[in-house]
């Protein structure tokens, strides 16, 4: 290895900076998760609806988002919004862009959950005198969200991994901090290695917890 010795101790002085980066990453992720979940649900319902316009809008939305890179979407919002006269913080742009971006996979997942609800449930709730709205919120949604829970969590893990791209719009989230620290300390190898491991641990933790919750909430249909 060319006589190179790994030195992680040098990086300890930057731990405060890293912590700030982690906080910012969490802010981005939580914000965009909420947006992407509700937007995904809306899109899924639109896709299932009888209205042709709603189905068309949802399909185009999802296809465009899935077939263009997140980086370009991010730039589009970051540099484009000021042209429309909308001046917002980079953080807000990141949250919105990431939320919109992962609404597409969430839509697919929730939709397949919705489709898995058998017609018998609709008939049963009609027989109980539920209105259409009640049927949806009390019967269909709880079942389909349970079915969609596991793929949703894997979408959220993907979202967290994708959030590292937000470094591209000058956000000092964990990746941005890593870049700065690597320039200051001249220890890029160690830093990116740590980052790799941290992300891996995080992903494992989430999928472990998700599996445990999934076992708890599943019901026999």
């Amino acid at each position: 290895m060319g006589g190179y010795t790994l030195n992680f101790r040098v990086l300890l002085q930057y731990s405060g900076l890293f912590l700030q980066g982690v906080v910012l990453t969490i802010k981005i992720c939580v914000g965009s998760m909420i947006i992407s979940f509700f937007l995904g649900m809306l899109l899924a319902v639109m896709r299932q609806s009888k209205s042709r316009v709603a189905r068309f809008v949802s399909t185009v939305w999802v296809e465009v988002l899935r077939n263009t890179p997140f980086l370009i979407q991010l730039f589009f919002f970051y540099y484009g919004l000021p042209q429309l006269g909308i001046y917002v913080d980079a953080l807000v742009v990141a949250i919105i862009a990431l939320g919109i971006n992962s609404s597409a996979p969430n839509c697919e997942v929730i939709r397949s959950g919705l489709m898995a609800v058998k017609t018998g449930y609709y008939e049963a709730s009609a027989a109980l005198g539920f209105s259409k709205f009640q049927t949806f919120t009390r019967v269909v949604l709880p079942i389909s969200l349970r079915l969609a829970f596991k793929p949703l969590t894997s979408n959220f893990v993907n979202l967290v991994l994708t959030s590292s791209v937000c470094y591209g719009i000058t956000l000092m989230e964990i990746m941005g901090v890593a870049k700065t620290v690597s320039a200051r300390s001249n220890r890029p190898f160690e830093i990116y290695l740590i980052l790799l491991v941290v992300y891996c641990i995080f992903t494992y933790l989430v999928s472990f917890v998700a599996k445990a919750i999934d076992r708890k909430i599943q019901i026999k249909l």
Partner: protein
Amino acid sequence: MQVFDFAAYARFKWSDMRMILKAMGVTLHVTLLSLAIGTLIGLILGLIRCAKNPIVNKLPLIVMEPLRNSPLIVQLFLVFFGLPSVGIRMKAMQAAVLTLSLNTAAFFAVLVHSSIKSIPEAQWEAGYALGFNKFQIYWKIIARQAIRLLIPQAITLYISQLQCSSLVSFLSLMDLSKAGQQVAQKTMLPFLIFGIVAGLYFVLSFPLARFAKYLEKRIGFTI
């Protein structure tokens, strides 16, 4: 509302468009090369994953898991900015292709593994009963079905890798996104330029996505 200032659109010259199209070539070059290499490595890793020996079939996970569970951008930076301090120096292009290929390989291996595993065990037994050896069973029974499950998923993976290839622009490689950034900065028309760039990515990947869906219906089957 600068978007409706149509006179400004004259700032976008034909030479800028040529630059973007040329950069699209770089994107295609990086993507195709790393997809080819990644598929090959992924196939090997996936087949090792299917081995009977419980230790051997875990070995590829050592490579695959970190690649699948961390952001591509971290991997790119580790290879391009990190490895030189260990004494491994490479050009941006090499680093990009290397990282993207390994990344593709990790995801492809999972697809190979899962599509081979989804062929029921009984078919192996049937093969043995017919007096086939292991290689014959793989070749004549398993592979033919597994590949039909694999191809549509592989195309979906290829599309997502094409999107991911936009991240190589962080290595100061002149790919489609980087060219888009530069032209957008120069002409100050971000809406138009990023719209065009997104459109080009879309043109590349949407037909493929449709094709994958068609194949899934055409050659896919349920066991």
